[in-house]
């Protein structure tokens, strides 16, 4: 954690200056429709239990943030939501991961269909080595959405706040864009196929502060139409952006390190009146 220094003396230390958390109408979040529901979800890589017993519900048109120290399973959890972990050898889950009531890992569920509805944006921008418009149009063409492709491209780029910057160079290579622009292009690419949910795995961690701010602003706009789940190692970002926050941590026992969901609550509550001591230690910077 760069901004919250760790204390090593072990003595009881007063919390640092309280986090600026915008007040939100917390009742709104829980009254909405449930998009994801996890019941006792355990994630294994071979015999190693990577993530233990997660119970949580993610709500529609709400930004939900996953925070916690490195290696505690946040990315593993989020990647499990759209079956991106399937290709990792030894990966398996027990428990239930329900999407609108249907088991994501049920028999007969095609992972390609899952990812059609639950898109993902990665930490490092990964545009295809194609032109800007081809980057966005490639997937819709394959999925059969060939009508109105130009309108679709424009709409996606406008939603990603990138249209004005690239409208005159749609045929140029996407690799010529800056890092922040590339990431917004990846977001535009993801929303061009009109998914239901967008998962963002540390979307701004590879970007400079100005680009980060524009991505955060973008997320505020996107949540009107999409459900967003973001993983971030930056607590301030979670405080700025998310309505609900989940704190993951590591449980080190019997020589094994397992990720656990410690607390999941409205952002304001989690940061100002956490129920668990571990949460309080983390958000006040006693450990990072």
């Amino acid at each position, binding site marked *: 954690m760069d901004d919250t220094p760790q204390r090593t003396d072990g003595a009881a230390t007063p919390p640092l200056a309280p986090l600026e958390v915008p007040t939100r109408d917390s009742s709104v979040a829980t009254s909405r429709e449930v998009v994801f529901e996890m019941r006792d979800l355990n994630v294994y890589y071979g015999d190693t239990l990577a993530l233990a017993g997660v119970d949580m519900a993610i709500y529609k048109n709400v930004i939900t943030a996953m925070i916690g120290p490195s290696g505690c399973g946040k990315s593993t959890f989020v990647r499990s939501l*759209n079956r*991106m972990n399937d*290709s990792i*050898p030894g990966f398996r889950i027990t428990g239930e991961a329900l999407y609108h009531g249907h088991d994501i890992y049920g028999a007969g569920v095609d992972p*390609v*269909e*899952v*990812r*059609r*509805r639950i*898109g*993902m*944006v*990665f930490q*490092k921008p*990964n*545009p*295809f*080595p194609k032109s800007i418009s081809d980057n966005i149009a*490639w*997937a819709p063409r*394959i*999925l059969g959405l060939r009508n109105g492709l130009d309108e679709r491209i424009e709409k996606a780029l406008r939603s990603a706040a990138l249209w004005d910057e690239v409208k005159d160079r749609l045929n140029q290579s996407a690799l010529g864009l800056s890092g922040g622009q590339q990431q917004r292009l*990846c977001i535009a*690419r*993801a929303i061009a*196929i009109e*998914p239901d949910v967008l998962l963002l795995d540390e979307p701004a961690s590879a970007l400079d502060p100005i680009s980060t701010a524009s991505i955060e602003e973008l997320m505020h706009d996107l949540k009107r139409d999409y459900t967003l789940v973001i993983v971030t190692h930056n607590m301030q970002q979670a405080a700025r952006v998310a309505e609900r926050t989940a704190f993951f941590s590591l449980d080190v026992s019997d020589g094994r390190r397992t990720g656990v969901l410690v607390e999941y609550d409205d952002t304001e509550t989690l940061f100002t009146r956490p129920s668990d001591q571990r949460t309080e230690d983390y958000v006040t910077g006693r450990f990072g």
Partner: protein
Amino acid sequence: MATSIETGNPLGPSGNLRRRQAVDRFMRGSATAAAVLAVAVLVIVVYSVAVQGGSQLSISFLTKAPPLVGLPGGGIAPEIVGTVLIVALATAFALPLGVLIAIFLSEFSSRATAYPIRLALDLLNGLPSIVIGVFAYGLIVYGGPNLGWAGSFALAIIMIPLIARSTLEVLRLVPQAQRDAAHALGISTWRTTLGIVLPACLSGILTGTVLAVARAAGETAPLLLTTGIFNPQVTSFNIFGVGLPNIPIEIFTESEASAPADHARAWGAALVLMAMILIANLGARAMLARSRRKMFR
């Protein structure tokens, strides 16, 4: 043994340093000599073929048919045509198969299923070419006429492991992040391979193919058994109906013949074949270097 301390020089030789230095110099000299020997062998081969065959090179050598055995003059035009046709057909067999095998190994198979296939590919690569020739002979030619396409079949078997292995190498160079991006858009693995992974590999696949072609163009044993020994006076394109004359067999038959004119033609044919392969090899390596520079920009 006098120690350095006794002689007063703290950095002087100690223990068996002189012997170790001698051994070091000897080994370095041996390694250098071996490397020089390898280069020398190549230079000697190229030089002798060039000197012996250079006198034969002319436009008519490349465009005329060989005369009756023993007579001077003529050329190897039918053989050039035959080699080009046989190798082209072999490439048409081997390229799609080799690329698909590599795609399967890289994109679709699990580690468990990949291992026996890679092993089979490596073993196929090491199979003696005459054994492959006998196989093709028994499968296609036995009891019937020699056929050009039987030779292509045998050469394709030789080319497939080479193309598959070089394609697999370039497929591995494509970053996983690209595949992740496509998968996260709800695109299946095959469409991802076709639209994102393969286009990034085209240069490497081409290079691997050219190297495989260069290898196959010089293989004599399989052609001996499948296309037979030929010395026609007429250029033929009928690869599916008859055995075609080709350069490696031509070199063999002309060398075994008795007249000096035949030997001269053999040298000329050897020069033409060697030039074709050297140019293909160097060209392929230049292309590969260019594409590697592009990929790591």
